[in-house]
């Protein structure tokens, strides 16, 4: 029984670490998007701003979903 709980907790931890790594990756992509959009604005290429903002918003939504996933896994592993 204890072994099963331990294995479940371990799986939860692996899932959380994976989600965190993914969030880090998404934030890095967002930093790149922001710098590219700013560079475009300064160079007078304003047409890059809209796709960058849309994509950045989608990445933010992914981050929110992953954060709620991490919270849920954490809660479940504490309850068990």
């Amino acid at each position, binding site marked *: 029984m204890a072994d099963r709980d331990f294995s479940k907790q371990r799986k939860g931890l692996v899932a959380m670490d994976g989600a965190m790594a993914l969030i880090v990756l998404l934030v890095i992509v967002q930093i790149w*998007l922001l710098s590219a959009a700013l560079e475009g604005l300064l160079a007078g290429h304003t047409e890059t701003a809209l796709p960058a*903002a849309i994509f*950045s918003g989608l990445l933010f939504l992914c981050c929110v979903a992953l954060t709620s996933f991490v919270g849920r896994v954490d809660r479940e592993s504490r309850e068990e």
Partner: protein
Amino acid sequence: MPFFRKPDSEALWKEEFSIHAADERYVSRRQFTKFLTLASLGMFVGNLWILARSYFTRSAVFPRSMVAGIGEIPVGGVKLFAYPTAADHCILVRTAENEYNAFSQKCTHLSCAVYYEKETNRLACPCHHGYFSAMDGSVLQGPPPRRLPRILLERQGQEFVAIGVKVR
């Protein structure tokens, strides 16, 4: 609570202060994830700000300003001036008998003032060795990410008048 404390017992302030420094520094996975999501929100807001800037910034109205007289500077010579405001330093270069080009003097890398190199006919930034074409302001070499903004000139009688700034 005993009135007298034993000499070998833990210091009173340690007993009463309930938070340990190590616990305070500890960042849980959930906290770290929340922080990253907040950073992600910051990036998104930054992108929205750029979007708003690019949509709602009205095209600037530039004043007309006398820059130099015809023949005032020799071939290969330069004249420094400020346009459109006194804080925007610019450089006018006479590259040939009938060829005058004016650019913003601010390097697009880190805003150092560029100067004209007559021998190579280019504008050089002394800070990080960036070079721009003296003909169109495009980047020839070095770290600058984009060309120098061009000052639009108009010939008015015996004078050159600055009428606008072209960024791209």
